[in-house]
């Protein structure tokens, strides 16, 4: 079969149409132009006309440039040599080191058979009380962080990556600012995890559609490690950039948009990626944590909205804190029943009291009089925000639970917390209430 074709018929947006024969759907191609070589993928076949999505953009492509079809879909070489390396959005080394060789793995392969999944049951400890205590992250969960530009969502991702104790960490950057990329790198390096991390980074300076491959690269590599029994953590930022690239292509292809210019298959496209998160029955797992910036801080915008319908909960990052309301880990009940017997009780009580505190604050702000109970709640709210909600807090789950008990005891009588009597008796800090404090018995042995 002939491999080169040079009768390019149409160049529009980032889509190039060329006359060619024997080309398969989804196949990869390269286009050599004066500006260098770019990868392209077949997105439409009509008779002899082959339409390609050009990842580096069509800028500089001329109608007699050469298109070479590679006769396979997009692939990534898979081997342990990927660890510690940095690649660009097309999978080429970005760290000045050589190409990696390894088993070539297709991107965008068929999904896992649901019966080969197991029920996830391992908690991922992050050291962040708003996650560990209130919305536990669970191995194999797919969870986005909903945020707006300016919030420290990338710092949060990096921190979770560092502390999550995964075997392999894969970072996928889409439209990432170069500074943020360097920060990720630095954090991983200082944290001593760079050796088990792989970075696929598409920066804001790169051609926009080149970021389309990033999630697939990360997930294909992650899936291979998971099949080897590894616990993989994939961090994707920012999935809104990915969705916007999809939008751009669909507009060039003259697809009818469904909602605010986004293609009708946005849900399917996102789901195909997020659903790669898996706990294999008989192998490892892949957890996916993603950043989704909400244009206009609007959660009903098609990108966060479709994401919410796909993922297993969401964290709202607002004013530098993980919001206790709206944030949800749908898998938390799989793990928080067996961590410690007071975990669920603390989770419920602290949030309910914090909700009441917000009501009291509203009343105060409207000029209504504050009762004793209101004042207790106000004090509680302040302490809770300082000692638990603040993102700089970094403690183990058990310490966080103890800290919550401390705050409750500082502000309330046991009965006011609404916590079951049996749990109170076991965990209420000694000496904090009017009951005669028992001295902790010194070890007698």
């Amino acid at each position, binding site marked *: 079969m002939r491999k080169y074709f040079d009768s390019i018929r149409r160049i529009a947006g980032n889509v190039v149409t060329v006359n060619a024969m024997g080309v398969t759907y989804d196949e990869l191609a390269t286009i050599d132009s004066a500006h260098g070589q770019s990868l392209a993928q077949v997105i439409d076949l009509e008779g002899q006309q082959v339409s390609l999505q050009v990842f580096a953009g069509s800028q500089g492509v001329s109608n007699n440039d050469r298109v070479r079809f590679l006769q396979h879909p997009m692939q990534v070489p898979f081997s342990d040599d990927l660890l510690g390396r940095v690649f660009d959005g097309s999978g080429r080394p970005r760290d000045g080191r050589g190409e990696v060789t390894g088993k070539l793995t297709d991107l965008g392969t068929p999904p896992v058979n*649901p019966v080969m999944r197991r029920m996830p049951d391992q908690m991922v400890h992050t050291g962040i009380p708003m996650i560990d205590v209130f919305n536990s992250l669970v191995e194999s969960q797919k969870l986005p962080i909903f945020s707006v530009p300016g919030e420290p969502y990338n710092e949060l991702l990096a921190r979770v990556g560092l502390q999550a104790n995964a075997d392999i960490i894969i970072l996928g950057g889409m439209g990432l600012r170069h500074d943020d990329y360097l920060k990720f790198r630095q954090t991983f390096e200082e944290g001593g995890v760079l050796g088990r991390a792989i970075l696929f980074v598409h920066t804001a300076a790169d051609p926009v559609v080149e970021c389309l491959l990033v999630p697939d690269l990360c997930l294909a590599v992650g899936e291979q490690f998971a099949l080897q029994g590894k616990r993989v953590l994939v961090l994707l930022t920012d999935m809104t950039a990915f969705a916007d690239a999809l939008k751009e292509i669909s507009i060039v292809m003259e697809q009818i948009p469904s909602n605010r210019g986004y293609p009708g298959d946005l849900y399917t496209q996102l789901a195909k990626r997020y659903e790669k998160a898996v706990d294999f029955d008989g192998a490892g797992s892949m957890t996916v944590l993603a950043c989704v910036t909400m244009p206009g801080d609007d959660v009903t915008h098609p990108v966060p909205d479709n994401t919410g319908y796909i993922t297993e909960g969401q964290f709202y990052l607002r004013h530098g804190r993980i919001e206790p309301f709206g944030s949800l880990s749908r898998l938390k009940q799989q793990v928080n029943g067996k961590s410690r017997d007071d975990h669920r009780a603390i989770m419920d009580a602290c949030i309910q009291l914090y909700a009441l505190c917000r009501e009291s604050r509203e009343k105060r702000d409207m000029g*209504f009089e504050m009762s004793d109970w209101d004042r207790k709640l106000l004090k509680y709210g302040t302490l809770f925000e300082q000692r638990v909600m603040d993102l700089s807090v970094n403690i183990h789950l058990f310490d966080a639970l103890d800290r919550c008990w401390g705050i409750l005891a500082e502000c309330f009588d046991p009965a006011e917390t609404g916590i079951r009597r049996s749990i109170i008796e076991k965990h209420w800090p000694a000496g904090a209430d009017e009951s005669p404090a028992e001295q902790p018995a010194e070890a007698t042995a």
Partner: protein
Amino acid sequence: MKARIVAVNGNLVIAETDGRVVQNSVGYCIHSDGTRLLSEVIRVRGHLADLQVFEETRGLKVGDPVELHEDMLSVVLGPGLLGQIYDGLQNPLPELAKQVGFFLKPGVYIHGLSTTQPWEFTPSVKPGDTIEAGDSLGTVPEGIFTHRITVPFGLRGSWTVEKVAPAGSYTVDAEMAVLADGQGAKRSVTMQQNWPVKRPLSVARRRLLPTEPLVSRVRIIDSMFPVVRGGTYCIPGPFGAGKTVLQQITARHAEIDIVIIAACGERAGEIVETLRDFPELTDPRTGRSLMERTIIIANTSAMPVAAREASVYTAATLGEYYRQMGLNVLLLADSTSRWAQAMRELSGRLEEIPGEEAFPAYLESRIASFYERAGALELRDGTVGSLTIGGTVSPAGGNFEEPVTQGTLKVVGAFHGLSRARSDARRYPAIDPLDSWSKYPGIIEPDAMASMRRLLLHGNEVRQMMTVVGEEGTSIADFTAALKADFFDNVYLQQNAFDEVDAATPAERQRFVFGKVSEVANLDFEFTDKAQARETLVAVTDLFRNWNYAATDSEEYQRWLKAIDQFIATKGRKV
């Protein structure tokens, strides 16, 4: 019939042929490596056949052969469907895993029924009998059910039994009977038959008006917004509001013979939960594993989109099949929006003129004809069977003013709208008691129900006023009404899905509790100050909550009931 691919765009393939093409017939697009991808003809234009491919089209090219068949996309019907986990095209997923491992593989199709499992057949006809389509030739026991082996539903006219297999053990492909039509035509019948999924299966004397309540054991549904056997209902709600959990609870507790769960374009993890849990759970009504009454159709969000479109029809067909046995079937589809989106994707590729939000113009009629497949039937032998359909809807942005929700509301008999405000406040199930409605009769006397509804409305008005005028500006009577409405909401409409007892309330207990709740709501407390009103209603709320958690007729149950009766007698005043 042979054809050749001339274009590929996503899951749409255009093939050129000189021969005959039947609309909605199946075809296979054949990959150069020999893989055969199941497809369906969805449009014919001259020599061109447009096919939707039920697999990813990666690797197909112009010039590849297409095989066009005459038959429609069908499922196989027969004993052994119960307890199965299928994909949208009726491939048994556990079997598929055995053959191809962790991942699904395009082009691998497995027969929907086991051909090796024997079934104990008892004939119910004898040679010489005259029969028609849908009549029973005999039965086999399938778990707790008597599975009718029927004359193929597609047969026309009267036939005479020439031969029928004696009682004994047979596999689904064995000949069970030979029928003759008197004009020389003969027909061999096995225990299995095919049926095209997009054609409703209904062979009956007549269609009945559905009136018998389907008890879901979810109080807010059964008492306030009831569903009937053979009826239809929908559950729209924003993400995370509790649609799936509500369906899971219903699948577990509903008083129905068979449940079909159609996971249509949703998370694979949710199906894993069901298929790991159900075999372990016993159905209290039968003492058998819940899985024995359940069929799962899993075409999750990462699975091919066209098969997602087919999956709801596959589920409906299996439901209709068991209805033909005089059984009551409940089909739960999660989410019909994903099905509608699959139609939208395809319509876009066909370059049809789009309607609102790019959905095709025929969206509403498709939704209507899907829900029309529900219904209660009086079969030819006088028995009654029913198929109830409940579908979730996932509206963009949680806004019900969108085509799928609106199209669905026009055709269903009950609407259980979930609200973000209620789910955020952890008031589960988050069905909005002010917006939801049902046109069906329920288990509670209509006047009593209407009176509680008025209370809720009144309470809501008072609450809204209070945000402006404050507690101070509210009369004690209004204030008390608001507290009573909260009380009803807290102890009756809300239900703890994770408590063993509270998770499911049988009809009889619902009626009894509803009576007690109404008594409290109708009490004239004659409160003099608001603090007293609040305290009193907090106290009675606590009594009812604890009562809800007590197993029916247990000692604890009686104790709380006594306390409640005393409360009512004294209007909550300490004596």
